[in-house]
C-alpha cells in the first residue's frame, strides 16, 4: 500500500516536473543563457613583460587585473564570458615549451563573478607571448552556438614565437565563417606591437586601441563586452558565389557573407516576380594590406547576358570596406502575360590588388544584402500630382484667363449683332 502510494507520489511529481519543463519560458531557464547569446573571450597576456611599471605608476598586470574585476562586475547577463591566458605557466627559456603556453583560465559561460575574480587574482607575469596559439585556443573555446563571437586580446608585446603569424591566424579564423571579431588592446606604444595588433584587428573587422591609462583599459573592455551584447544576433548566412551565372546559388531576401579573391568574379542569382524590385548591395572588406586604389562593381545581368543595371564605386586610401548597390524593378504585367518570376544574375567583382608579399588566400570578406520589395511607382509627372508653382504660372494663368474672357465677350457681342441684324 505504502509502496503504491509512493509510486503514485513519484509519478505525480514526475508529471509535474515534466509539465514544468514543457511550459517553461522559451527565453532561457534560470542560469542558462540562450544558445545564441553572444560569446566573448578575454585573452590576457601574462608574459614576463607585464611586470613593467608604466600604467599610471602601477604594473601592467595590476592594471589588467583591476580592469578585469571591473569588467566582470559590469558584464551584462546575456553575455557568455570566458578568460584565456597566454604565457601564464612556463617561466623557462625553452622556446618550444614557452610557445605552447596558453591556458583556458575560465570557461566561456555565464560568469560566476567570485570564481572568475579568484582565478584572475592568481595570475603572475611569467612566460612567453604565443598570440597565434592563444587566438586559435580562444576560437575553439568560443565554438558552438549561433551567437556573435568576440575575442578581446590584451597584450603588451608582439608575438615572441614567430609562427604561426597571429595576423594570418586571425584572418584564417575569420574566414571560417564563424563571424569572429578580434579586438586588440595594446599596453605599450611600441611600433611592432601596434603593427601586429592593428593587423589582427583589421583582419577580423575588429578595433585596435592603444592603452595608456588604467581607467581607459577597463572602460574600453567594458565597451567591447557591451558591444557584443548590443550587436544583432542575426549573422549573415555563408554562401559561395559561382564563377558563372548558370551555376550561381539562388539568394532570397537577407544578409549573406562570402569570400572573393583578388581578380575573381562571383555570381549569384535572385528570382524577382513581375511587380517586384530587386535590391542588392555588396561590400568588400579590406582585411589585409592592399594597394592604395581599389574599386567594386555590382552588375545585374539577365541569364542571357544582357546588362540590366550596375552599381560601382572606386576609392583610394585607408578604408574598411568599399561598397555599392543596385536596384532593378521588374515591370508589372497584364493578366495574360507570363507571371513567373524572372531570374536575375548579379555579378560581383572588385579591383583590389596587393603587393606580392601579401597572402592571397582566403579571399577578401564580402557581405551581400539582398532584398525583394514591392515595385516602385513611376511618376506620371515630375512634379507632385502635376501641380504647378511660381509667378510664371500665375502670370500665364491670369493672361490666359483674360484672353479667354475677352474672346468670350467679343463672341457674345458679335452674336448679338448678328441676331439684331436678322
Amino acid at each position, binding site marked *: 500500500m505504502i509502496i503504491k502510494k509512493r509510486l503514485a507520489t513519484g509519478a505525480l511529481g514526475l508529471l509535474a516536473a515534466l509539465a514544468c519543463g514543457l511550459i*517553461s519560458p522559451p527565453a532561457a531557464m534560470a542560469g542558462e543563457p540562450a544558445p545564441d547569446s553572444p560569446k566573448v573571450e578575454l585573452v590576457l597576456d601574462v608574459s614576463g613583460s607585464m611586470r613593467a611599471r608604466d600604467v599610471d605608476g602601477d604594473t601592467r598586470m595590476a592594471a589588467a587585473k583591476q580592469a578585469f574585476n571591473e569588467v566582470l562586475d559590469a558584464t551584462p547577463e546575456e553575455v557568455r564570458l570566458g578568460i584565456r591566458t597566454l604565457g601564464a605557466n612556463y617561466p623557462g627559456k625553452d622556446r618550444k615549451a614557452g610557445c605552447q603556453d596558453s591556458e583556458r583560465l575560465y570557461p566561456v559561460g555565464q560568469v560566476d563573478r567570485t570564481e572568475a575574480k579568484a582565478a584572475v587574482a592568481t595570475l603572475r607575469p611569467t612566460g612567453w607571448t604565443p598570440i597565434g596559439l592563444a587566438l586559435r585556443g580562444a576560437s575553439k573555446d568560443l565554438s558552438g552556438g549561433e551567437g556573435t563571437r568576440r575575442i578581446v586580446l590584451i597584450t603588451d608585446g608582439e608575438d615572441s614565437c614567430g609562427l604561426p603569424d597571429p595576423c594570418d591566424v586571425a584572418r584564417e579564423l575569420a574566414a571560417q565563417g564563424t563571424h569572429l571579431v578580434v579586438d586588440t588592446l595594446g599596453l605599450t606604444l611600441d611600433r611592432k606591437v601596434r603593427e601586429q595588433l592593428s593587423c589582427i584587428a583589421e583582419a577580423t573587422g575588429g578595433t585596435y586601441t592603444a592603452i595608456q591609462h588604467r581607467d581607459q583599459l577597463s572602460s574600453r573592455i567594458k565597451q567591447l563586452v557591451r558591444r557584443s551584447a548590443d550587436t544583432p544576433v542575426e549573422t549573415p548566412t555563408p554562401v559561395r558565389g559561382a564563377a558563372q551565372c548558370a551555376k550561381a546559388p539562388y539568394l532570397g531576401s537577407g544578409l549573406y557573407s562570402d569570400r572573393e579573391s583578388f581578380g575573381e568574379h562571383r555570381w549569384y542569382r535572385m528570382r524577382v516576380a513581375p511587380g517586384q524590385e530587386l535590391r542588392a548591395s555588396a561590400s568588400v572588406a579590406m582585411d589585409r594590406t592592399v594597394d592604395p586604389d581599389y574599386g567594386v562593381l555590382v552588375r545585374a545581368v539577365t541569364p542571357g547576358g544582357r546588362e540590366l543595371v550596375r552599381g560601382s564605386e572606386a576609392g583610394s586610401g585607408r578604408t574598411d570596406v568599399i561598397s555599392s548597390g543596385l536596384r532593378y524593378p521588374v515591370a508589372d504585367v497584364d493578366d495574360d502575360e507570363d507571371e513567373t518570376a524572372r531570374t536575375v544574375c548579379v555579378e560581383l567583382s572588385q579591383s583590389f590588388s596587393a603587393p606580392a608579399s601579401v597572402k592571397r588566400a582566403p579571399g577578401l570578406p564580402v557581405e551581400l544584402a539582398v532584398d525583394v520589395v514591392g515595385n516602385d511607382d513611376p511618376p506620371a509627372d515630375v512634379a507632385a500630382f502635376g501641380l504647378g508653382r511660381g509667378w510664371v504660372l500665375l502670370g500665364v494663368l491670369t493672361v490666359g484667363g483674360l484672353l479667354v474672357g475677352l474672346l468670350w465677350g467679343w463672341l457674345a457681342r458679335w452674336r448679338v449683332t448678328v441676331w439684331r441684324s436678322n
Partner: protein
Amino acid sequence: MRALRTLGAALTLCAAAWLTAAAPAAADGKDGTDGKSGTEAPTEAGTSFRTATELKPGQRATAAASTGDYLYWVFPAAAGQVPEVEAELKLPDASSRHGSATWQLDVYDGLRRHQPCASGTPSRRAAQQDRTVTVSCTLRQVRSWSERWANDPLQGAYYVRLTVVDLPAEDLGLPIDAEVEASVRDAGGAHADGGDMTPLNPVLRAGTAPGTDSEPTGDASSDSADSSDSSDSSDSSDSSDDKGGDIPHAVAEPEDGWGSGWWSDRWVWTVIGAALAALAGVGGYTLTRGPRSPGRPQNGTGSDI
C-alpha cells in the same frame, strides 16, 4: 494526500523556476527596447553597415572610440527632405600625437551607395595642435522616385561613417570622442516631386540558406517555392512599412512617414492661379461690354448669351 502535497510542491517549484527564468528575460526585453527605441541619444557607434547605431534626426549621438576605428550610424530621411550630417571629434592630447591627420565623414544610402556631399566639408585635415575637428556633409534633396540607373538619394536609411583616412602610424589606437548629429530640413514645395517607392531600408536578418535548387533540375518546384518565398518577404516588408513590422530593418519609419505626403505649397499656387484666371476671365469679359452698358437703356443683351 501526500501525492497531492508533492504535486503542489512540485508546481510551486515550477512556478518559482518560471518566475526566476522569466524575470531576467523581461528585464532583457526592457533593456533592449530602452537601447533601441528610447528617446535618449545613442552613446555608442556601430562598427559596420550591419551593426550601425540608429540615430534619429535631431539627436546628438556620442561615442567613445579609438583613432582608426570606423564608426557607423544610420538615420532615416523621407522624400522631399535635405539631410545634413555634422560630426565633431575631440582629439587626443597634442602631446601624444605625432602629426596632422585627415578625418572624413562619408554618407551612404540604404543600398550602400556612396552619396556625394552637395555642400559641407566632409573631409578635413587636423593639425597636430588642434583639439577638435568638425566635418559636415549636406546631401542632395531626397527624391521620392528615380530611374533605376540613377544614384539619386531616395527615401530610406542613410549610413554615416566617420573615420580617419590619413594619419601618422604612431597615432593609431589613441582615444577619441565623437559627436554626430543628423538633421533633415524640408526642401519645400518647389522641389515636391511625384512618384513613390518602397524606402531603401535594408532588412537586418540572415539570408535564407541557398537551397539545393542551384541545379536546373526540378526547376518548377523550386521556382514556385522560391517565388512564394520572395513574395512573402516583399509582402511582409511592404506591410512593415505601414506598421513597423516584425522584420528588423536598419531604421524605424519616421513619425511623418517616408513620403513627403500629398500636401505641398504647389496646391496653394495652383489654386491661386485658377482663381486669378477666373477673375481675369470675368474681367476680360466685362471689358468687352463695360463702356457701353451705362449709355444703353435696355440691359437684356447680357442674359441673351
